[in-house]
């Protein structure tokens, strides 16, 4: 029973962080219908920006955090403006290839700028583990979860209530109609990329704080595909729930099955979910079911 609770709670904590990174994917997909395979690399760049500000420049955590927000937003907007805006109307496969290429470019850039050596952050949170009842959680994981959830809630409120958020939802719903409501759809695309990059970068900051950073940190970003396929590519709520489910399932798989097969189940479990969900419910738990009228 101890093990069960322990695995459940740390699975939820990891899942919350997955949810934040998945949000970075969903925000972009929802507004622009682009599947961004560079989400993981946005995450990695976010972590490196923080490293540069906090370690190389020696700034305190709060200003360094603000630099991550600004830098990630800028990165998202530049990518949209310089590359994806020109891909408008191209087949999905071309756009997917562009984002895959972008992910390699970003990884390469990170190696050039920061080298491929392992780096770590100065401690951001109190070191003492958090103890809830009989469950012990590492402090970095606990605080990472808290920050991730706070960011997700801020994004969700923003989308629900702000003028800008409503305009973005409208753009996601129908671009023609949005244009004729006086909404500048190009600005919305730009903002969606900025937000998506910020959410991913903050996820990277949290993950980097837990396990350190390397240019291939972005590989963790592949795990968001099970998350968003499960939750529905265009659903914020789905991304959150999907994040929790994937986090918990992989933790259980790792805790209960790894000892019998000699490890590795934890990394495979999310993708088993991916395949199952595609077979059973291809549009995810909360995704929009595309209905074609013939």
């Amino acid at each position, binding site marked *: 029973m101890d093990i069960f609770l322990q695995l459940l709670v740390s699975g939820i904590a990891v899942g919350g962080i997955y949810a934040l990174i998945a949000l970075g994917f969903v925000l972009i997909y929802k507004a622009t219908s682009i599947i961004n395979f560079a989400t993981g690399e946005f995450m990695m760049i976010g972590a490196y920006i923080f490293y540069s500000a906090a370690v190389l420049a020696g700034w305190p955590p709060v200003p360094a955090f603000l630099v991550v927000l600004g830098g990630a937003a800028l990165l998202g907007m530049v990518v949209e403006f310089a590359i994806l805006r020109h891909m408008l109307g191209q087949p999905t496969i071309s756009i997917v290839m562009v984002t895959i290429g972008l992910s390699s470019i970003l990884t390469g850039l990170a190696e050039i700028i920061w080298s491929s050596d392992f780096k770590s952050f100065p401690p951001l949170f109190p070191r003492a583990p958090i103890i809830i009842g009989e469950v012990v959680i590492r402090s970095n994981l606990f605080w990472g979860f808290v920050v991730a959830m706070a960011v997700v809630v801020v994004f969700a409120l923003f989308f629900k209530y*702000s003028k800008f958020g409503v305009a973005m939802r409208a753009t996601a*719903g129908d671009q023609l109609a949005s244009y004729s409501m*006086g909404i500048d759809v190009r600005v919305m695309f730009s903002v969606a990329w900025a937000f998506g990059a910020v959410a991913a970068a903050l996820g990277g900051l949290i993950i980097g704080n837990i396990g350190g950073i390397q240019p291939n940190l972005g590989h963790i970003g592949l795990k968001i595909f099970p998350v968003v396929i499960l939750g529905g590519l265009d659903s914020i709520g789905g991304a959150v729930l999907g994040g929790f489910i994937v986090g918990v399932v992989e933790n259980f798989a790792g805790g209960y099955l790894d000892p019998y097969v000699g490890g590795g189940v934890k990394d495979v479990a999310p993708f088993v979910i991916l395949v199952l969900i595609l077979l059973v419910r291809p549009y995810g738990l909360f995704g929009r079911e595309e209905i074609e009228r013939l």
Partner: protein
Amino acid sequence: MSILAVEDLSLSFGGLQVLQEVSFSVAPGEIFAIIGPNGAGKTSILNCLGGFYRQDRGRIIFDGQDISTLTPDRRAALGLARTFQNIALFRGMTVLDNIKLGAHHRLRSGLLAAALYWGRAHREEMALRREIEDEVIDFLEIESIRKQPVGALAYGLQKRVELARALAMRPKVLLMDEPVAGMNAEETEDMARFILDIQEEREITIIIIEHDLHMIMDISDRIMVLNFGRRIAEGRPDEVRRHPEVIKAYIGEQKGG
């Protein structure tokens, strides 16, 4: 003085000439209809007016300003509203949210205030809501459905919600692309009545594209007839009805005439 003037508008897609030097002008408060057989270029004109197509040649003057090169959102902000032939509502949202989006460009609170949903943004929202309730929802008789998601509504009602959203923009000119297409007789009659009421009470100029000639003849002040991208006739309904070119376009030439 016209509220909207189109001068020598030409548009082609590749080798296909869609519009050829079409000119017309619409007086303030008028109901101006554009009719013509399928493929005559009616919807292309609306798309040029709305800014979705960029004309090859010609100018569009709206309210004294040349809008020929403005983006669709700028034109909407200047007071050019539109309804679509294939309903373009925001499907996941309620009727009320859809209509509120029509007033979107009139909300002034900046990004920060809006993000925090604070003070002015909140007051603006409340005032807007009252205005929409009084001037749009009551007017179009959709009180009972305002909390419903638009996807669940009957076709005729969806068309009405789209009109409500356009009215919430407080436009100077309303472009309507086949407002009664696919409607039954009763729904058509309702829509015709609303269009006349809008003209009478709102001082909104209305430009309609339509296949339903009966309704158009009944409610329009002036009608322009297009065929193969050219203007073949223009005038009052009774004039257009008798125009030989129009009869030829719609019914065909009499054999051995």
